[in-house]
Every structure is written in structure tokens, then in C-alpha cells.
């Protein structure tokens, strides 16, 4: 039997802003059999999405197929003129985007967009297409399959939109479906549902798939084979089981190791601290809009959250998107003044509003944001960015300041020569290190880390976590570590606060972040994290009542 997809010596060029041409895909060849699901795994910039899109005969603006060929069911697609490629898109090969929320047109109803493929290619009468769409909605376990298509994209949740985009991809009966990181933007509990729906429709229809992802554990649940990519080149190809358990290539091993960072080693002989806690958060209520006379904001985001953090310890705050964890960091930092409650640093109450805190109070408590891209001023050099807190908090100038900047760069393991560069010239990991160095420049006692590894690739994120631990050992820092990623939190925190819908569910040690964790929601959350085990999804059983109670989908 011939292969459904044959990619031979594929090369893709991209034009940079400065007009240079760089090769982003180098000599890639692989096959996909009928009904087989193949995963493309790699970090950002590895070319996985670019390769997947060439299977549709498409390259993003600025890129072009420079060599090789892509053959789909025996007919080459890479050498066709644009209008002939368009004829095969949606019918032979279709696409499920990373962000369904952005890929649905906000101006049209969902049903019109789902059946659009049949309209463009004149596949069937509109009524038949609609009936077929409803069948697909049912197969994808969507609620209210008969009427959900009459809504606009903003009226359904992210997890539902992602499944609706799968319906949109399947309506034209394609032989191959490309999934481009389709669950990356979803919460773990939602991801399970979406993955299950994808898997069942793909198996039922014996449809071949390309699953693009950076997450090995997710891919392990759905793919038959895995292709590991780095810098536009194939590193290793193998059956899923082999890649997970018998990796050959060093890069694959590195990926697997980074997946499960070593748990936070507790120092046994750490003295029991009788002193008062470093940070106390007491009955915080916060939100947006006008605060009424009883002290409740019109949109309440945080409801009566309290916890303590001791010196030299790390506290993790975990929860799904919208649970209020980032808002809590903003409240503690005073960016968003709380409506009720107190924040005490070393026993002294801090003003709720950042603008009324003293310079020393500001210095002791620093915040590092998720996206270094937006947190670093692109017009300033690295030296300028680091000089500012040094001048502001410590009144440093001249040579002393320069020397301190060099020290800070050493501390975050960056070459001193970077000081003259601008943030845009740095990689994502380097930028996050600068972001961290800026917080260190203040000589803070407590650093609020708001999802600081979420935008980074696993290997880079693991290195940042190592750096955080090292800095803590040397400078007696404490971290308040906010993340949606349980393994990250487990790697660095002594205690974990679980949040749901603005409330603190419970506080527990990361050691018992397993099945015996006290609260049903914590159990649901922890059990939803994919494991590097091909049978995990099929074997996973979750209490449907708990699922129902804690789903705001």
C-alpha cells in the first residue's frame, strides 16, 4: 500500500525583515500511512508548524517552498498553482488551528463557518451539510449539538470552540487532518475532554492525522509515531512507545528529562524558624469595577484568600485560567489595590495601593511577569533596563552601577557582552533571565513569579527553574510562584495553594500532590495532567460529579 503523504527533501526558505533569506526547513523527508497519526514534536522555531502547513501546499507570508516535494495521495501538491492547491484544501487535507478562538471569524455564526468548506467546494446541498455538521457535533461530544451552530464564536467556551474547529476540519471528509497545537491554549481539565473527542472521531473514521505539539505527554496519548524536530531538521523518528521509552537521539532524551523536572530538594537541616512569616496575606477580596459599601467590587475575582509564606521558602499558587492567580499577584504587589484584607511583609502591613508604599517596601517585594517581551522596554539597552532599579532603589551611579550590572548578568548566567544589546536581539530564555535580573537588582526579599516559564520551551524553562533554585540558595530569597503547570510548581515549591474561581481550595505539600490530596478539585486537577504513558488517557477515570461541579466550560 502506498503512503498517503510522502514528503521528500523538503526545504523551506524564509525572508527576514532585513531581507536576508534563511533556510528554516532543511531536507526533511517522512511518510504518513493511511489512517496513521504522526506527531511533529519540537520547540518553538523547530519548524513543526511550517512543515505541517506545507502538507496543505501553504507557507506563511514571507516563506516559500524552496525545494523537495510534498505528495498527497499520490499527487504532488507543492508544485500546483495556487487555485489548484485551494481545491484540495478542506477536502483532502484540513486544518485544526492552535487558537480556535482567533481562527473563527467573529462576524459569522459558527454553523456558517463549519459548513463553509462544503460551500466553497460545492460538496453537498446546504441542508445536508448542516445535518452532517450536527452529527459531527454529537460525535465530538458538544453540548446542545442541534443549536450550538446558531451561536457566534464569542458565545461558546474555548474548549468547545476547539472541538467545533475539528468539526469544521472534518466536514469535507478529508483523508488527512492537521492539528496545530490544538490543546495548548486549554486548561488541563478541558484538554482531556478535547483530546478524547479528537481521538475517537479520528479512530472511527480511520483518518490520518498530523499532530503538531511541544508537549510529549499529550502526543503520547494520540500519536502512532513521533517525529522529533530541531532547527528545521528531523532528529529522530520512531513509534511512540520507542521514543518515550527507548530514545536514541540525545535531543530526545533532553526533551524527556525536561518534561519532569527534579522535585524541589528540601534542605533537611534548615532551622525551624520561630520568627514571624515573611509574607502574610489575610482575607483578600479584590476585583474590578466599583467597590460597594460592604467592600465588594462589582466583578469579584478574588474572594477571601489567606496564606503565609516563610523566609527562604517557596509558595506555589496553581489553578486554571481565570481562577484569579495572576490577579492575586497583582494585588500583593499593589498594582490592583485590594477591596478588603491585608498584606503584611515581615509583620508590617503594606498599603493596598502601590503608590502609597514606601521605596523600601517596594524594593523588598518585586514582581516578574510572564511575558518578558512586553515587560522589557524594546527601546532600551539591557544595561539601561538593569540600571534603572539600581539607581532608583540604591542610588547607584557610575562605575559602581556598571560593576553591579556585570554582577547581575553573571548571576543569571548571561555573558556580560549582552549589556549593549536591546531586548529584541535576545532569545526568549535570555529575555526572561534579564526580567529576573531586574528583580534581583532591587535586592528583593520576595519575588512574585507570575507564570514566568509558561511562554518558554520545556528545556529553556527547566534551565530557568534551576537558576531560580541556585539564586535562592545564594541570596536567601523567597518566591511566590504562580503557575498553571503542576510539574513546574512541584519542582520549586515547598507548599502549594490550589485556587478555583477566586477562592483558595486548599494548601498542601507538593509531595502529596497525588491521588490522596484532600480536596476533590485538587484531585481532579492533578489527575488531569497528562503523563508520559501511551495508555494514560484511555485508563483515566475521573469522577463525573466532580467534573460537573468544577467545570465552568
Amino acid at each position, binding site marked *: 500500500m502506498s503512503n498517503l503523504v510522502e514528503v521528500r527533501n523538503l526545504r523551506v526558505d524564509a525572508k527576514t525583515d532585513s531581507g536576508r533569506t534563511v533556510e528554516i526547513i532543511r531536507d526533511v523527508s517522512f511518510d504518513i500511512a493511511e489512517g496513521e497519526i504522526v506527531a511533529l514534536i519540537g520547540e518553538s522555531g523547530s519548524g513543526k508548524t511550517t512543515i505541517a*502547513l506545507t502538507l*496543505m501546499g*501553504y507557507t*506563511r507570508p514571507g516563506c516559500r517552498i524552496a525545494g523537495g516535494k510534498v505528495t498527497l495521495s499520490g499527487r504532488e501538491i507543492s508544485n500546483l498553482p495556487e*487555485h489548484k492547491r*485551494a*481545491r*484540495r*484544501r*478542506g*477536502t483532502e487535507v*484540513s*486544518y485544526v*488551528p*492552535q*487558537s480556535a*478562538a*482567533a*481562527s*473563527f*471569524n*467573529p*462576524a*459569522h*455564526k459558527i454553523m456558517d463557518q463549519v459548513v*463553509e*468548506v462544503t460551500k*466553497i*467546494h460545492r460538496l453537498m446541498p446546504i441542508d445536508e451539510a448542516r445535518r452532517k455538521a450536527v452529527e459531527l457535533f454529537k460525535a465530538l461530544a458538544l453540548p446542545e449539538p442541534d443549536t450550538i451552530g446558531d451561536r*457566534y464564536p*464569542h*458565545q461558546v*467556551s*474555548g474548549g468547545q470552540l476547539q472541538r467545533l474547529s475539528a468539526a*469544521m476540519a472534518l466536514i469535507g471528509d478529508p483523508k488527512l487532518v492537521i492539528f496545530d*497545537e490544538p490543546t*495548548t*491554549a*486549554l*486548561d488541563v481539565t478541558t484538554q482531556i475532554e478535547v483530546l478524547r473527542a479528537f481521538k475517537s472521531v479520528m479512530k472511527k473514521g480511520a483518518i490520518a492525522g498530523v499532530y503538531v505539539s511541544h508537549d510529549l505527554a499529550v502526543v503520547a496519548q494520540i500519536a502512532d509515531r513521533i517525529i522529533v524536530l530541531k532547527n528545521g531538521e528531523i532528529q529522530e523518528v520512531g513509534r511512540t512507545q520507542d521514543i518515550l521509552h527507548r530514545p536514541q537521539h540525545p535531543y530526545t532524551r533532553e526533551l524527556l528529562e525536561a518534561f519532569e523536572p527534579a522535585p524541589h530538594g528540601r534542605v533537611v537541616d534548615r532551622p525551624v524558624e520561630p520568627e514571624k512569616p515573611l509574607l502574610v496575606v489575610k482575607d483578600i477580596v479584590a476585583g474590578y469595577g466599583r467597590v460597594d459599601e460592604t467592600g465588594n467590587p*462589582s*466583578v469579584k475575582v478574588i474572594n477571601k484568600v489567606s496564606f503565609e509564606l516563610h523566609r527562604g521558602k517557596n509558595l506555589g499558587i496553581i489553578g486554571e*485560567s*481565570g481562577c484569579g492567580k*495572576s490577579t492575586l499577584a497583582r494585588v500583593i504587589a499593589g498594582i490592583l489595590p485590594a477591596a478588603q484584607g491585608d498584606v503584611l511583609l515581615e509583620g508590617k502591613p503594606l498599603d493596598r495601593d502601590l503608590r502609597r508604599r514606601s521605596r523600601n517596601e517596594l524594593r523588598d517585594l518585586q514582581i516578574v511577569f*510572564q*511575558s518578558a517581551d512586553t515587560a522589557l522596554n524594546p527601546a532600551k539597552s539591557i544595561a539601561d533596563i538593569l540600571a534603572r532599579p539600581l539607581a532608583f532603589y540604591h542610588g547607584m551611579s557610575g562605575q559602581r552601577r556598571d560593576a553591579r550590572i556585570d554582577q547581575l548578568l553573571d548571576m543569571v548566567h548571561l555573558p556580560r557582552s549582552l549589556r549593549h544589546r536591546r531586548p529584541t536581539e535576545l532569545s526568549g530564555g535570555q529575555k526572561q533571565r534579564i526580567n529576573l535580573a531586574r528583580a534581583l537588582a532591587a535586592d528583593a526579599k520576595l519575588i512574585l513569579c507570575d*507564570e514566568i516559564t*509558561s*511562554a518558554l520551551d520545556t528545556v529553556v524553562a527547566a534551565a530557568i527553574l534551576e537558576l531560580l533554585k541556585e539564586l535562592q540558595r545564594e541570596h536567601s530569597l523567597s518566591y511566590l510562584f504562580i503557575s*498553571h503547570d503542576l510539574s513546574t510548581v512541584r519542582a520549586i515549591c515547598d507548599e502549594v495553594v490550589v485556587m478555583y474561581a477566586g477562592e483558595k481550595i486548599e494548601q498542601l505539600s507538593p509531595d502529596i500532590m497525588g491521588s490522596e490530596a484532600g480536596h476533590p478539585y485538587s484531585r481532579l486537577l492533578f489527575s488531569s495532567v497528562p503523563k508520559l504513558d501511551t495508555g494514560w488517557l484511555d485508563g483515566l477515570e475521573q469522577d463525573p460529579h466532580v467534573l460537573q461541579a468544577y467545570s465552568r466550560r
Partner: protein
Amino acid sequence: MGAEGSNLRVQGIHYHTSLKGRSMNSPILNLVAERIIVAVVTLLFVAFTIFFATEMLPGDVAEILLGQAATPEAVAGLRTAMNLDEPAVLRFMYWIGNLFTGDLGVSYVNKMPISDLIGGRLVNSLKLAGVTAAISVPIALTLGITAAILRGTIYDRIVSIITIAVISVPEFMVATLAVIVFAVYLGWLPALSMAHEVTSMGGLLKVFAMPVITLSFVISAQMIRMTRAAVLETLNTAYVEMALLKGASRRRMVLHHALPNALGPIVNAVALSLSYLLGGVIIVETIFNYPGIAKLMLDAVSTRDLPLIQSCAMIFCLGYLILITIADLVAIVSNPRLQ
């Protein structure tokens, strides 16, 4: 990036539910009412500004009207008769009150009711504006959208170059050139536009041709550029790429996917351009000696006819506000997120 995206999405959903929670009686009606209230408040504010700005003009109206030879008694008598010795705020109240009842006052210069003076001129101006809009809006939108569809082609470049050239050339230059070419050399069209002499359809075309061509040039260029930019911006979105990956043609991507989402900015650009037709046509009306309202206002300024100036300014402002409010309403109604 992924996590950031989901945060944004969640905020959007929260916002939406909070909107819903606040008022189930159609948020779109609330928004529309809000826009109309804002328009009325703006109009009052502008009325206030116009009145006191003309108040502050140097010279005493009574003295100007009676001339230098007037006796002080005569001036004082006239001042009393015209309520000029009452406080300005009180006179502002009278004026606003009269405006609302449709009484625009009496011209200082020729003692005619201002509504009579303006009436015919306003109709003339609206005719000119209407014909210009009817011709230039469809042409501008077509050119803007086709340029976006054919981005980067020769066609797109030519449209872009011509629009920039037209924007850069002042309108008196276009108008003067038009007169030289069509009226002087070719002799096809009259150099002056005496609208009241028109009797036949052909005559109407002849009279309007040159002012309309000149004005169309000026306002279309802006609309073409804005339309092209707005459509191109939406063409860069993920949902348009999705349409491409569904096999849609370039034409379908632009007309079906990009255009509905670019409607808000386009309608605003059109409204802004059209508003120019009411107040900003002084040069064109002057050059072609067209008896429109802008020329009337110009004459009123040279004769210090304050009530006439005030009324004209109010009409310009009203026209502008109506256009902008309509544009806002179209943008609101065309956004399903607000329904």
C-alpha cells in the same frame, strides 16, 4: 504565548457575562442610546463655544450696525431692542431656546429671517454633497477593496500612487486646473456653477460636473486609503488564514471574511470624509461661485452677521455629528459581539 492567549480569551468571556448580567434588555440599545446622548451633549457644548466665541469678537454689534455717525442714544436704544444689555448667559439661553423651536433669528445685515437665507443655500450644498457622495463613495470603496484583494500587484501600486498624489495636491489647485482644462481650453463646461439657472438634466450635469469632480478627488483619496488599510489589517488575522486553509479564494477571503470585520473603521472613514463636504467646501464653492452654505458663511463673516455665522456653524456641527453618530451606530450594529 498560548497561556497568554487563553488569559485574553477568558477575560473576554468574563466581560461578556458581566455585560449580560448588568442588563438583559439588549446591550445594543444601551449603546445606541449612549451614542445619541453623547452626540446631543457635544452639540450643546459646541453651541456654547460658538456663541461665546462670536461674543468675544471685537466691536459692539449695535455700533457696527448703526455706523460711525450714530448718536450714543441711538446705539443705546438699539442695544436695548436687541437685548444686548442683558447678561451673555441669558442671551445664550434665549438663543438655544429659539434654536430648539426652529427660530434661527434675524440677520443683522439685511433683516431677513436667517432660516430664509439659509434654506435655499443649504439645499444647494446638500445637492452638491449628495451627488459627490453618490459618485465618490462607491468608487472609493471599490478601489480600496480591490486594491486590498490585489495587494502588491501593479494595480495596487497605481491606485496607491494616485491616491497619494491626489491627497498631496491642494483642492484649489485641482479646481483651478479643472477650470483651465474643461472651461478654458476645451470649453465643455461652464466655469461658474449657477445652480438656479439649470433647467434640463444635461444642464444639471454640466453645472455640477466640475465641483463634483474636484470634491470627489479630495474625499475619495482618504476613503480609498482607509478602506485598503482596514481590509488589509483584517486580512492578517488567524480567521482569514483559516479561510484560506479551507480552500477559499482570495476574493472570498476579502469579501466574506475580512470586510465584515473591517466595516467599523471603513464606515468611520467614509463619515469623516463626507463631513468635509458640508463645512470644508468653501474653496470649491468660492472658485466655482457655487451658491452653497459655506460661501454664505464666508459672506456672513465679512459682514459681521453674527446670527448667520452662529447658525451656519451649528448646521455644520450638526451635520458632522449626524454622520459620525451614524458611523458609530453602523459599527455597533455590525458587531455580533454586542448583540
